[in-house]
């Protein structure tokens, strides 16, 4: 019991003493005060009531998504994506790259090293650019974690419908451009 309390206390301290959290609290408090000054107490109350569904979502939905992302990240065999994309060029590579990019969880620390590994394994420009573009604009993890809780479902729906074909377009364009804009001799990649 005592140990549980101690761990809990440490967790709370870790959250509260984070610089960015302090900054966020200050910004939230300042914007609340500003709203109160400009439009009065009623506006502040309306804004808080507006927030209730979003906070409900945050509590009910987000932990599940984060857990899911963690499970996939840990369980996914490391070589799987590389094998699929390493097949290289062609239509299949582009389709696989789009799907893999959209479902790659985690930040740039996951995706960019993966692209470098794929490049070294001999993948073509089209699937590489397709993959990074898909990861940038179709990232399912980012949508579930940030976009839906903050802006609702309508905007992401329209955005996915509008963007689903864009990564392949970027990939094919890159392949085309690379014909006359040649890679520097000696290869690509800093490290």
């Amino acid at each position, binding site marked *: 019991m005592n140990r549980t309390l101690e761990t809990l206390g440490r967790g709370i301290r870790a*959250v509260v003493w984070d610089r*960015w*959290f302090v900054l*966020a609290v200050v*910004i*939230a408090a300042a914007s609340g005060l*500003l*709203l109160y000054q*400009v*439009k009065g107490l009623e506006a*502040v109350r*309306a*804004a808080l009531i507006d*927030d209730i569904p*979003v*906070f*409900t979502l945050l509590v*009910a939905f*987000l932990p*599940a998504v*984060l857990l*899911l*992302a*963690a499970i*996939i*990240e*840990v*369980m996914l065999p490391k070589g799987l994506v590389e094998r699929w994309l390493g097949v290289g060029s062609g239509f299949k590579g582009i389709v696989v790259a789009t799907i893999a990019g959209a479902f790659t969880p985690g930040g*740039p620390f996951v995706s*960019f090293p993966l692209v470098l590994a794929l490049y070294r394994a001999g993948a073509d420009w089209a699937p*590489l*650019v397709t993959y*990074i*573009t898909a990861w*940038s*604009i179709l*990232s399912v993890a980012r949508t579930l*974690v*940030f*976009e839906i*809780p*903050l*802006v609702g479902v309508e*905007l992401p729906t*329209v*955005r996915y*419908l*509008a*963007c689903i074909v*864009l990564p392949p*377009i*970027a*990939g094919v*364009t*890159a392949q085309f*451009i690379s014909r006359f*804009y040649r890679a520097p001799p000696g290869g*690509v990649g*800093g*490290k």
Partner: protein
Amino acid sequence: MIGLSVFVWTLVGIFLLVAWKRRPETIPEIFSRFRSSGRIFVGIVPMALLAAGFLAPLVPSDLVGRWLGDEAGVTGLFIGMLAGWCLPIPPVIFYPVIAVLLKAGAGLPQLVALIVAWSVFALHRTLPMELPLMGGYFVSLRLMSSIFLPVVAGFAAMGIVELLRMS
């Protein structure tokens, strides 16, 4: 929204069961990743949400409407794209801004152009991660291939919004 939550939680249950059956040693790692990625959602994100809720009524909606609203039309797509390029900020800050703009009357296609421009250009990722790792050639090739995507996405979104309205 309740349905979606139930669905995702069921999925989590199944996945956890599979993970526990197949490789029980991964369970602690799963939870430690969950804890580290969940931290900002206990602290920063709720505060960002609060701030976005407070600021939305203060943003002059006629201004947002004129620049990014439905009446801004195609010009609004280009304004959205420019705005997206100029916001090299991580998603924790970016999406509250989008929430404020949406509440203040920005149009969906214009916001689509903005989000796509932000996610493709993303200087906050490109400069510290992509450039050192992948080199200048890859970055320039990628940016050249995706420079027109925000506007294409905006036009597509306009069509989709029209279709949804009709149905």
